[in-house]
Each structure stands twice: as structure tokens, then as C-alpha cells.
């Protein structure tokens, strides 16, 4: 588990963060290879076949079935890997463990309030035990907000007149940023 963060990703402090980052880097490295091929070949062709002097007839090459099948099938396989991988982790993010500790979250312009099962509450700061799944039962008093903790890789919209649910399990002790990510007006932060 990477608790210091990398160039691309913030530190990871939840049980699912490792899975999310793994897929992120898989896509990143695959993309870098494809990008290097596209741009490298374009630059190479542009240089090698640059125009020298008068206009001439050029090669009539306009298709190559084997090559076209290759560049259709390989990306299809790659995106299917990404799809299945992404979906599996997504289900982990969405299925709340049975023994989760339930906190009621209310979003409004412009603060969060948290109600704990023992009866306490807090404003703009959620205090949770480490190594225990936390279930968030969320609701909004006015417009749509969104609950986002980058270090936990967790995000869920908070809607008026409807409950939305998400969960996370922190793996280390510390203070982490909580952001609202659905635009809600002047105090959106």
C-alpha cells in the first residue's frame, strides 16, 4: 500500500485504493505504448516521406486486411480487460459489507453534517475508526452535492429527497481532505 502518493495518484489510505490504482496504471502504461506508436510512426513517416521537389504520383496502397484486423482485434481485447477489471472493483466499491458502521451524512449549502449511531454529530469533519468498514447513508437538504475523499478513492453523489449509499475502510490513521465534487454554488469546496 502506497501511503505517500505517486506522481499521478494521491496517497492511498483505503482497502480499495490499491485496486483502483492498479487499473489506472495498467491503462496508463498501455496508453503510453499506443500513443508512442501512433505519434512515433506519424513523425517517422512525415520525415521519411517528406516532399522533395515536384509533385509526383504516389503509391496506391489503400488497404491491408491483416493489418486492419490486427488493429481492430488487439484494442478490442485490451478494452475488454479494462472493462472487466473496472467493473469488478466497482462492485467492491458498491457492495457494503454486512458489519459496517453506519454514519448518516447530510449535505447542504455549504457544509456537511455527520450523525453517528451513538448519537453524536460533527460538522465538515467525519471521524471514523481505522480498519473498520464505514457505511455512509447520504442525503441532501437542497441541491446535488458529491462526497469525495481522494485518498480513499471514494465518491458518491448526494441527492435531495433520495438516499445514496457508499462505503470505505480506512487503512491508516491521519487527516484526509474531503471535497464536494458536484457544483453547488458559491461555497462549493
Amino acid at each position, binding site marked *: 500500500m502506497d501511503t505517500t502518493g505517486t506522481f499521478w*495518484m494521491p496517497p492511498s489510505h483505503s482497502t480499495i485504493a490499491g485496486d483502483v490504482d492498479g487499473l489506472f496504471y495498467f*491503462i496508463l502504461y498501455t496508453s503510453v505504448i499506443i500513443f508512442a506508436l501512433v505519434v512515433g510512426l506519424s513523425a517517422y513517416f512525415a520525415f521519411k516521406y517528406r516532399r522533395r521537389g515536384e509533385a509526383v504520383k504516389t*503509391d496506391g496502397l489503400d488497404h491491408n486486411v491483416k493489418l486492419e484486423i490486427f488493429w481492430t482485434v488487439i484494442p478490442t481485447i485490451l478494452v475488454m480487460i479494462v*472493462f472487466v477489471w473496472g467493473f469488478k472493483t466497482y462492485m467492491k466499491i458498491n457492495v457494503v459489507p454486512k458489519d459496517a458502521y453506519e454514519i448518516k451524512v447530510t449535505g447542504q449549502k455549504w457544509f456537511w453534517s455527520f450523525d453517528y449511531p451513538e448519537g453524536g454529530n460533527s460538522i465538515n469533519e467525519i471521524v471514523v475508526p481505522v480498519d473498520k468498514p464505514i457505511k455512509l447513508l447520504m442525503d441532501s437538504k437542497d441541491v446535488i452535492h458529491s462526497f469525495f475523499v481522494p485518498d480513499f*478513492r471514494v465518491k458518491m453523489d448526494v441527492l435531495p429527497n433520495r438516499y445514496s449509499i457508499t462505503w470505505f475502510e480506512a487503512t491508516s490513521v491521519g487527516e484526509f481532505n474531503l471535497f464536494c465534487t458536484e*457544483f453547488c454554488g458559491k461555497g462549493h469546496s
Partner: protein
Amino acid sequence: MNKIPDTHYLNCKKGIKSWLTTVDHKRIGILYLFSIMFFFFVGGMFAVLLRLELLTPNELYISSDTYNQFFTLHGAIMIFLFIIPAIPAILGNFVLPIMIGAKDVAFPRLNLASWYIYIVGALFAVFSLVSGGVDTGWTFYTPYSTTTTTSVISITLGAFILGFSSIFTGLNFIVTVHKLRSPGMTWFKMPLFVWGMYATALIQVLATPVLGITLALLIMERLIGIGIFDPAMGGDPVLFQHFFWFYSHPAVYIMILPGMAIISEMITAHSHKKIFGYKAIAYSSLGIAFASFIVWGHHMFTSGQSELAAMIFSFLTFFVAIPSGIKVFNWVATLYKGSIAFTTPMLYTLAFLFLFSIGGLTGIFLGALSVDIHLHDTYFIVAHFHYVMVGGTVIAFLGGLHHWWPKMWGRMYNETLAKISCGLIFVGFNMTFFTQFIMGANGMPRRYHLYDEMYRPFHAFSTYGSMVMAVGFFLMAYYLIRSLYNGKPAGNNPWGALTYEWAVSSPPPEHNFDDIPITDHGPYDYDKVVAKSTLTEN
């Protein structure tokens, strides 16, 4: 020596009235050029002001309310008044009829009407700008948009009206392509630009009414409180998101397909090389147009939609990626064994391949469900869609503008300045937006006026990039306007290209052709025909 012909479409009739009542597709293209570029300038100024404010984490010179209005107006103006109409209404209007050997579009008066409707829609948008602004974001999400006190009604009414302008253009192109192709020009002998415009037109006609209905419901919600979207009246705010993206996702392809269409023309004309995979490119345009209708839910992975819906939308999303990828591979293969000239349009084409590849590949991150949960509504998204919309569509549009500029006006711009400007825009763009991928992945949410100190270096670098870009754009405005007065005459065919528009004079005569043109070679038969560039005669 090349000479400008004595009479052409620009001087055959004189006076303001002849322009305001014109039914000539070329003149309507020019009317659109000036009006759309005006709004591109306005939207661009908002962008520069926003980036300037974001130089520091705290308030620099505008309040949060003003900031929220600025990003809303930047988005709404750029989307509805610039990027949706830009390519079809300016370049499509100007070259599509000539490319297929027609004297005009099928419904010239409807074409002029679409411009007037555009102006009326634009006036509504301007009204909301001067009457206190709008602060909802260009997406107008409910219930924020139904409860804010700003002028939401006039801007949504503006977008509603602009929709009709878009539908009229689309309808016109569909009928024109079906009915007015010259003898011998079968579907698979059409230039790929026409294929791209045709696929775009299908989306414009089929998807835009949904936006109209959605915005009409939003307006009624605000005016008479019908309670479709407002949860306080038992409505469903997420329903608005479904309706909105049912149009706005296909609309992404209304924006990018025309850009792709231009690339196919430029990459062949400036490499004198037959296009690789003609049918694959033509069919992939239709494939993208179709698939664009069934992926809207990928904008809503965190909205609380069911896991099953999210899974299906994620799966389908990856099938839009495949035809886009195929197009890019075909363009790269087209360069192989070509005769590549480093003209300004070719530089834009290479810039497109670079930037659009990044835009497309970062879309894969967002299509993957678990990764999207983390990246949704952060600067990663902002960077992704700017790479697709600016790096893709706008770069292609600017390339196309430089490609057909000598045809429009009969004169060449200063190529050295054009290449410098292209370079500044390319470098400035990457500085501005690549940094946004990094800070987005690190958790910086979008639409924040004040932000955490840790993101400061990224924001500052991004702002410097936007200044470089702005310089590039001002330079472009300078040499393009200057070329109208003292640019060198370009001759009929400055690029030595084979499509029809290069066979007529520059600027073209009023009715395009004296005789019906007959196709004796394909649009990309550079292996059979050599067309000499008329620029060398200068």
C-alpha cells in the same frame, strides 16, 4: 502569375442587403464565419480571465459568484455558439456543395433561416450575459438550475433556439447529400468530409429535439413549477441528467465527427496520398454516430444509477473507442509512402494526431468504472474533454480554416506566421491542459474558485500555458485579417488536391460550376493523377 478572377461570389452582388438576403451557401458560410468567430473570441476571453483568477489558491480579483458565472458563460458560449456550429455551418456550408458538384444546398432559404435563428439564439445568450449572468455550469443540472436566482431562462431559451439552427443545417446536408451529388459520384466516391458531415447531420436531426424538450421542461419548471425535476415537488433531478446527456453525449460527436472529417481531407491533400481504409473511415463515422446514442449513462457513474445500468454503459462506451481508434490508425497508415508537405494544414493534422490520441486514450480511464469513481468531476475530466474538443475539434477546425482559406478569399496568408501561431497554440495547449490531468488524478475537483495550496504549482503552470495559447490566437487573427488585403493570390489549387472545390476558381464563381462536373477519378486517386500546385506559379 495567379490572378483573382474578375467576378466571383464575393463581388458579384454588392451592398449589405445582398449579404443579409443571400441564399448562396458560400456567402452564408462567410456570415457564419464572422458571427461564430466573434463568439469564439468572447468565450476565449472568459477562459483567459478564469485561468488568471486561478493563478492563486485564494481570491485574486473576482468573487466566487463572478467566477461561477464566468465558467458557465465560457462553457455555454463555447459549446452552443462556437463548437457545435463551427465546422458544419462555416466549412460545411462553404465546401460541401462544391465537393459533391452541386450549385447549392438543397434548401438555400432554410440555410439562410438557420443563420438568422443562430443570431436570435445568440441574442438570448447575450441577454443573459448582460442581465446578471448565469451560474449553473453549461450542464444546467437541477435542482441547482431551478432554484438559482440568475438568468437561467434566457440562456436555456437561447440554447433551445440554437438547436433549431443546428437541426436546419443537418436536415439541409442530409437532403443535399442524397439528392444533389453530381453524375457519377456514387456514395463511395464521395470525399470523406462529406461522409463525416452526413453522419454529423444524422445526429443533429435525431438528438437535438431531445435537448429542446429538456430545456423547455426546465424553463416550464422555473416559470410555472410543473415539478418534473424539482424534488421539493416530487420530481427527479437525476431524470434531468438522463435527458440532458441523451442529447449531450451524441452532441460530443456532433463536435468531433466534423473534425475527423476535415482530417481525412487534409492528410490526403497535403501528403498527395490515397486515403488508407476509405470504407473503414466512412463506416466508422456511421458507427460512431449510432453508438453515440447508447452511452449517455457514462456521465453518471456516481449519480446513484443502478450497478447494472453502470455496467452496460461502461461496456458500450468502449465500443465507441474502437472506431475512433481505427480512424487514427488509418490516418497514420495514410502517411506511409506519401509525399508529405509541411504546410500549415499538415502541421495542424499532425498536432491533431498527437492531441486527439491523448484525448481518446484518457477516455479509456474514464470508461473504466472503478477509475471513473475517483476521476469523475475532477480536473482529469476537464483536461480530457479539452483534449478531445480543443485538441481534436478546434485544431481540426483551424487546420480546415487554413486549408480552405485560399479558396474562400482567393488569397494566401503568411505561412511563416501561420506556422509560428500553430506552434504557440500547440505548446500552450499542452502546458495548459496536460497539467490538469495530473492535478485531477491527484484529486483536484472541477469548478472550484478557491483551492487547496497543494495544487498551486499545477494551476500556475496551466495559467502560463493559456497565455501562450492566447498569443498564438492573436497572431492568427492578425495574419488572417491581413491576408484579406494583401495576401498573394493563391490560384485554383494551392495544395495540388483532387476534390472538386480545387477545380473551380478561388474565390469560386457565384454558381460554383458552369457545367455539371463529371467524376472521372476518385477524390484521393493520387496514384493515378498529379495535380500541380498553383502556388509555385507565384
